[in-house]
């Protein structure tokens, strides 16, 4: 291979195209997982059993996408021997699809709760839970944008945002506890809501994992966000 004008020609066309396609599909999987999480809370607030059932069904699509992406990552590593930014990208894809998958599972768990409690009014007005969801949705949006643009500034304050979610989770828990002490017949509903809040707290943690992988993909430096 001689360096001359030929050096200006893009090499490894198919490989580059496959990498691009991989990123597009990871992005797509991320959007789906994020939408599931958002819809699960909408379904909860509106006690919408139909929407909840749809979320549970869609989980399968996300699982399939995860397997497909993982297979393609392995293939690229085995056949193309990626280096530098390519290797970091593929490594990041392999890791964050697990987080996306967990997020969609958690959304599915919330949806199952909705299916069970949709007939009864909530024991309290839902304020903190939608707020938790809003914050985690913001984090996931920023992750997806950073993943596609390589711009990571908006991931800097993830620890603070995660702390905010944790604080809201504490608040919800305390409130539900007080409520059930006063009115023991609310125990079943309250414990369901408690789980919803716990799942949202976990989604925030997954967003932090995703953000640290994306920071690694872009900068080559490993940084733990939590």
């Amino acid at each position: 291979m001689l360096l001359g004008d030929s050096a200006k020609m893009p090499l490894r066309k198919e490989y580059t195209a496959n990498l691009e396609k991989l990123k597009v599909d990871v992005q797509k999987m991320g959007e789906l997982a994020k939408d599931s999480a958002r819809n699960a809370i909408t379904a909860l607030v509106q006690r919408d059993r139909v929407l909840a059932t749809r979320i549970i069904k869609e989980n399968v699509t996300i699982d399939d996408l995860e397997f497909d992406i993982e297979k393609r990552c392995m293939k690229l590593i085995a056949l193309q021997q990626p280096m530098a930014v390519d290797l970091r990208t593929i490594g990041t894809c392999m890791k964050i699809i697990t987080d996306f998958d967990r997020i969609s599972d958690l959304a599915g768990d919330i949806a199952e709760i909705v299916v069970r409690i949709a007939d009864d009014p909530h024991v309290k007005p839902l304020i903190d839970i939608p707020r938790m969801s809003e914050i985690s949705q913001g984090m996931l949006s920023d992750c997806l944008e950073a993943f596609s643009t390589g711009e990571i500034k908006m991931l800097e304050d993830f620890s603070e945002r995660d702390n905010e979610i944790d604080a809201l989770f504490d608040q919800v828990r305390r409130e539900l506890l007080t409520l059930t002490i006063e009115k023991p017949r609310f125990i079943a509903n309250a414990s369901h809501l408690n789980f919803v809040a716990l799942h949202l707290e976990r989604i925030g943690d997954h967003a932090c994992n995703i953000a640290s992988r994306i920071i690694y993909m872009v900068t080559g430096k490993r940084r733990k966000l939590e």
Partner: protein
Amino acid sequence: MSKIEARGLNVYYEKGTVHALKEVNLEIESNKITALIGPSGCGKTTFLRTLNRMNEVNDVMTKGKVFIDGVEIYNGGVDVIQLRKKVGMVFQQPNPFPMSIYDNVAYGPRVHGTQNKKLDTIVEESLKKAALWDEVHDRLDENALKFSGGQQQRLCISRALAVNPEIILFDEPCSALDPISTSKVEDLLRELKKDYTIVIVTHNMQQAARVSDFTAFFLLGEMIECGKTTQIFEKPKDKRTEDYVTGRFG
């Protein structure tokens, strides 16, 4: 102090018309493996050959300084024979002499005046260090050309070791070898760095990533970037290095 240091090194071929190395600055650490990578014609072999003054032939002009253990080797006072004893070289194509295994390994020590009675030990030790002894110890008087490519390459490594060098330069030592022989040579390199400073030119990026501690990337006669191998392959600083290690130019 680094074992080798090149400062402002320039090499010209063809009466100065081909500028093969341009102001190269590079430090090479003792007891480490440093890999030189870069596209064909970028000056890797040229650089390697400056380190033991193998470029000193007609039509080749070298400017700048190379220090080995702090001593400037292009200084008039340096004895080239001693320099090449200290800085051994192994080439791309195994090039054993058409003589027995024993004589191949004993060749260098004999030239340097080693007494015959010490030769047996030197031959055995050198072959052992190059992980070849077990395969050839009962065939020492057979012609080296009868052996396989991988065995011949390890013989050439034994031959380089026999004169007790401190630095060994490898110019694509595995390009003619199958994967098994290649992995033997790679194991050997890791073993050898305990006692030697190693510089290896390789076109195989994965090989550089597997065996070396440091990697220097050359392009069009310039040394573009040098750093820890993990850094060069995980997060190179220069865009040109990244384009090269990811397999894309331009």
